[in-house]
């Protein structure tokens, strides 16, 4: 961390470092977290500081090391398991869903799984369909998991510790385009239960999370020039959703656009829209808008990839449509 500020990557690293210093049960495990320094350089230097026992390189065995993280949590440790990207987490899906999310309930409350799993998500770097998907909404479907999406330096820095304190499994999704984000984070703890209003406005509520928060804020600034004042909600917690913050905002603005880099069908954006319809239907002045990824595996070519995911210009256009409808 430099004096002038920090990056999202460094904030994440600092959070891991602090957790490992504060509690000896905490250890980091995953592919290339040690000697390589993490595939996105998040854990650079941690091996040197904490040694190979606590900064554990694993073989390419996602199912085994995620499952071992679950077992270690059962055995009294507080593991942080890193999976390189959400696409690779599919190899560990069985362990995450059939074990981590299930054991507490299935054992009648005897076996909780205090585990943190971190992984990268999202598109925008021309990595094509096996490295670019946003499947966090899918994980948000699963009871028993808490799903977080830090979009700011504060959240990158602050979400890990309360996640480790959580007695249940927490999945943290780091959008790949955010690692280089830099600035000076506000110090202090953050909660892992509430959404945050990143910008106030009374004409429309723009709901975003993770990689789309920055784009949505830029869109909101541009809309202000057209005299449309948008309120921007950063969901932060994708499960359980913070309905209260969403409904209060809808009560103020009466119009909503949900922005999501995940696909539309059967999605988080669908869930949010349903909840608004269920809980705040009479507050709405217009149909809820949704701007999601095109329903394609994310393509490599730059122009196709750009067209496949929400961009500032498409957010502006979609918001305008909701406001004028």
């Amino acid at each position: 961390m430099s004096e002038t500020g920090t990056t999202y990557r460094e904030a994440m690293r600092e959070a891991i470092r602090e957790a490992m210093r504060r509690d000896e049960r905490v250890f980091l495990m995953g592919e290339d977290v040690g000697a390589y320094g993490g595939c996105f350089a998040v854990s650079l230097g941690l091996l040197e500081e904490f040694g190979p026992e606590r900064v554990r390189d694993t073989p390419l065995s996602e199912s085994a090391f995620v499952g071992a993280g679950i077992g270690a949590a059962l055995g009294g440790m507080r593991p942080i398991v890193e999976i390189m990207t959400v696409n690779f987490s599919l190899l560990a899906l069985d362990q995450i869903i059939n074990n981590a999310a299930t054991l507490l309930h299935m054992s009648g409350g005897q076996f909780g799984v205090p585990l943190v799993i971190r992984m990268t998500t999202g598109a925008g770097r021309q990595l094509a369909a096996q490295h670019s998907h946003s499947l966090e909404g899918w994980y948000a479907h699963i009871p028993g998991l808490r799903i977080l999406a830090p979009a700011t330096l504060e959240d990158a820095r602050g979400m890990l510790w309360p996640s480790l304190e959580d007695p249940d499994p927490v999945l943290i999704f780091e959008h790949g385009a955010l690692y280089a984000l830099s600035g000076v984070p506000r110090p202090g703890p953050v909660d892992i239960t509430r959404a945050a209003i990143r910008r106030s406005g009374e004409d429309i509520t723009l709901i975003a999370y993770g990689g789309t928060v920055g784009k949505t804020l830029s869109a909101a600034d541009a809309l202000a020039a057209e005299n449309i004042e948008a309120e921007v909600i950063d969901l932060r917690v994708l499960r359980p959703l913070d309905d209260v913050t969403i409904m209060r905002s809808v009560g103020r603005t009466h119009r909503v656009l949900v922005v999501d880099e995940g696909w539309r069908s059967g999605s988080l954006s669908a869930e949010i829209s349903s909840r608004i319809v269920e809980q705040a239907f009479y507050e709405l002045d217009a149909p809820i808008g949704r701007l999601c990824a095109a329903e394609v595996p994310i393509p490599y070519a730059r122009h196709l990839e750009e067209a496949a995911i929400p961009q500032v210009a498409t957010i502006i256009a979609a918001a305008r449509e909701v406001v004028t409808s």
Partner: protein
Amino acid sequence: MAVKHRAREGASRDLLYQMLRIRRFEERCVELYSGEKIRGFMHLYIGEEAVAAGVCHALTPDDAVVSTYREHGHALVRDVPATAIMAEMYGKAAGCSRGRGGSMHIFDAPHRFYGGNAIVGGGLPLAVGLALADRFQGRNRVTACFFGDGAVAEGEFHECLNLAALWRLPVLFACENNLYAMGTALARSHAETDLALRAASYDVVAWPVDGMDVSAVADSASRAAESIRAGAGPHFLELRTYRFRAHSMYDPDRYRDKAEIEQWKKRDPINALITRMKAAQEIDDDGLSVLEKEISAEIDKAIAFAEQAPVEPVEDLARFVYSDTPRAGGTRPMGAVEAAP
């Protein structure tokens, strides 16, 4: 083109030609990556050329190849046109995957090249299934499946070796043991580092090969392929090799000793073959420069082609999520033929 050489010259010359093609092609790719013509993840094969050239030497045009994200070499040797590979890396519509895949996802149906798979171990089940289809349809073909030492740690590797052995399927498992899975050295991710031994435990015929010696690779692959064609079931070759470059263009390569890399470079498979061929008077400097010129012309042509090729119209973004027609890919209509008794 490869076939032409095979017919005209001896095997050594063809192997040299293929290895040089891969090397020169990728050297140009590095320049194009710096110039931001190629983007995303790009994994180079430089140093490992003897594996692709040697293994594919044992294959016929009817055989299939399943590969990884480090697949430029396999694709080139399998005669996927350099123009189509380059255009793919440029993200152009004329690319072999119409710009959808990029460097990691070279696909080419006419040459039975079933892709660039970027999920480690993800190609192995496909290879088993392709071989199963050949079995069902009474075709005597080999499916060659390339993957790295890292993939041996994935569950899919173990499931697939067992399945292929159990059903005695015609798969050639070509394990490119370059001693590293990204930044993790073999001995730091495998308790038993003798990978051929591990494969053999599944009752798959397996042996290690010097992957820096293209003739040794070609010999072993030919023996394995012959045996597979004769019905002896899956074979596994552990091809001991080394990548001279970083894992990908993003990799700062902090985890390897520079001396180790230099040591391996002394065993450069291309130099080794040239030295041998010169000693046997199979090639001289003039012969070499003829090869180089031919290759350089092929690559120039590929780059020129990629440069001028149009991109896919954005309106076609959502094409190929489902088949354009219900019977795409030449599949027979269901029920057209009665099942064999």
